[in-house]
């Protein structure tokens, strides 16, 4: 069983006969002796999305899912296209089903696609990904403390705060759970 506290974007769970996937976590609020969470969920059978709230202690049946490694090929409008590098089978997932994953995915990147009954429903990202800084203000030499931060844009279009010593064009390691900078990395092509 899965509790509501374990629900993450992309989690597929069953409520009665309905199979739902979490599209967005709207937040968790703490009451006096319990917490509640608000989600946006999509019914995989009907395609209908809806807001819902649960007590964190509520539990659900976990669904067995298939996970396949695929490569992010390209984006068409709001549809993300993936290909299995071995079978060349293609799959598409809409942006609204990917949560924050588009912040960290660039074309050519390998990711894990989650399937429910043969249908792609979400993507599982690694906890840490390496992405290139495509824009930021120039850094200040000498201050490598990492405490002073500045805004930057990644090659995925995602805005992130990075230490001021990191320069445009450099690669950084990002935590996909919260979008935070972890470290500067050297990428050899």
């Amino acid at each position, binding site marked *: 069983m899965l509790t509501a506290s374990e629900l993450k974007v992309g989690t597929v769970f069953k*409520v009665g006969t309905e199979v739902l996937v979490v599209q967005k976590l709207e937040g968790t609020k703490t009451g006096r002796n319990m917490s*509640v969470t608000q989600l946006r969920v999509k019914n995989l059978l009907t395609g209908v999305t809806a807001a*819902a*709230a649960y*007590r964190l202690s509520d539990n659900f049946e976990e669904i067995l899912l298939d996970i396949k490694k695929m490569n992010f090929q390209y984006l068409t409008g709001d549809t993300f296209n993936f290909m299995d590098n071995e079978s060349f089978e293609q799959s598409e997932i809409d942006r609204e089903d990917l949560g924050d994953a588009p912040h960290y995915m660039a074309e050519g990147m390998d990711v894990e696609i989650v399937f429910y009954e043969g249908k792609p429903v979400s993507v599982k990202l690694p906890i840490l990904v390496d992405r290139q800084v495509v824009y930021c203000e120039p850094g200040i030499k000498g201050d490598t403390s990492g405490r002073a931060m500045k805004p930057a844009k990644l090659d995925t279009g995602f805005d992130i705060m990075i230490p001021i010593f990191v320069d445009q064009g450099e690669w950084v390691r990002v935590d996909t759970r919260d979008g935070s900078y972890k470290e500067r990395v050297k990428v050899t092509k």
Partner: protein
Amino acid sequence: MTLEIVCQVVDNYGDIAVVWRLAQALVEDLSTGHHGDWQVRILVDDLTAFRALNPSGNTGAVQVVPSLDAAALRSVPLPEVIIEAFGAPTPVERLEAFFISGAAGSAQAKGLRALLLVHLEYLTAEAWSESYHLLPSPLGKPGVERVFFVPGFRERTGGLVFTDASGVTNPQGLSPDLSRGDEDLLITLFSYEHDFENLWTDLGNHLRGTDLKARVQVFEGRQREGALASWERVNASRPDLAPGLKHITLQLVPFVDQDTYTALVNQADFNVVRGEESWVTAVLSGKPFLWHAYLQEENHQLVKVNAFLEVFEPRFTAEGSWGAEVFARLAQEFRAFNKRPEATPLRNSATDPPAEHYAAFFEHHAVLSGVLGNWAHELRKSHKLSRRLLDFLNGFQV
């Protein structure tokens, strides 16, 4: 049809007090004939606690059933609506029967869209109360829907739990010793553990050199030890305050039932309150008050306090710059009263030095009473939770 409220007595009687008030409010609204024909029932795990709130034993039109008594539960029919108050779980066997009844189409037979399970949240002034209120919480049980019902001060929330009868300010029925006498300032104290040295000091300074008298009614409960200890200490160690302190009388008030407590708050000039039930009672009294929020990890209660101040503030700033000044002083004391020192055990303390002051409540009493009196009047007109709940149920009928 029946509306059943499930309650678990956790601590301080707070939960059962709100539930009992809600049940009475529902009966009050149903008696107008505008909300359909519902029977109101309470399931409670601790009848002793309930009897303490209602010593007469007269529950009027509200049926009260012990939830831990399986035979008693089986003897009452299943309801069409279950309200799980503050996370209190419906007894398992009863909930299973409720689901089976829902799947069998019993709701439709009664003209309802579905049987309804309502998760009644704790009162909060936070903005999220509006986004969570009436959010569905699907259970996947055919014929049964679940929804969040979130009490609040904001417009798009469930409102506040109170009865119209609690707005009666004539304290008829109060014993002579509890009724207002010839004091000029009547104060009630009902909080969590706290050192009230600053109350005695500030009140004494306010009264010094005047002919005014004050009576402080200290209820039985968690705040009494700290109130008395600090009173004795101040009297023993601060001879400089004696000219002011001699104007103050302390009255120890035993545990009283809910209606008596409401009457005492309504007749007082200033109330120190706590938790949820007495907090709402104080707000609706229209009198100045200081609220002690339920203590939470990492001073999270300050989030609740600041949210309340956010809702409170416009009532003052609408009065202009002087209103803003008064509010600023008030807000400072609310925060000081509720902040716990860092790295201390999660408990209120009757010995930690107090940080709040009370002069603002005495100096601006007339202003505060005006603003709060208007707000209380508006809340009573538009924010009655029982009415909002019954209106919601009306929309549940096919």
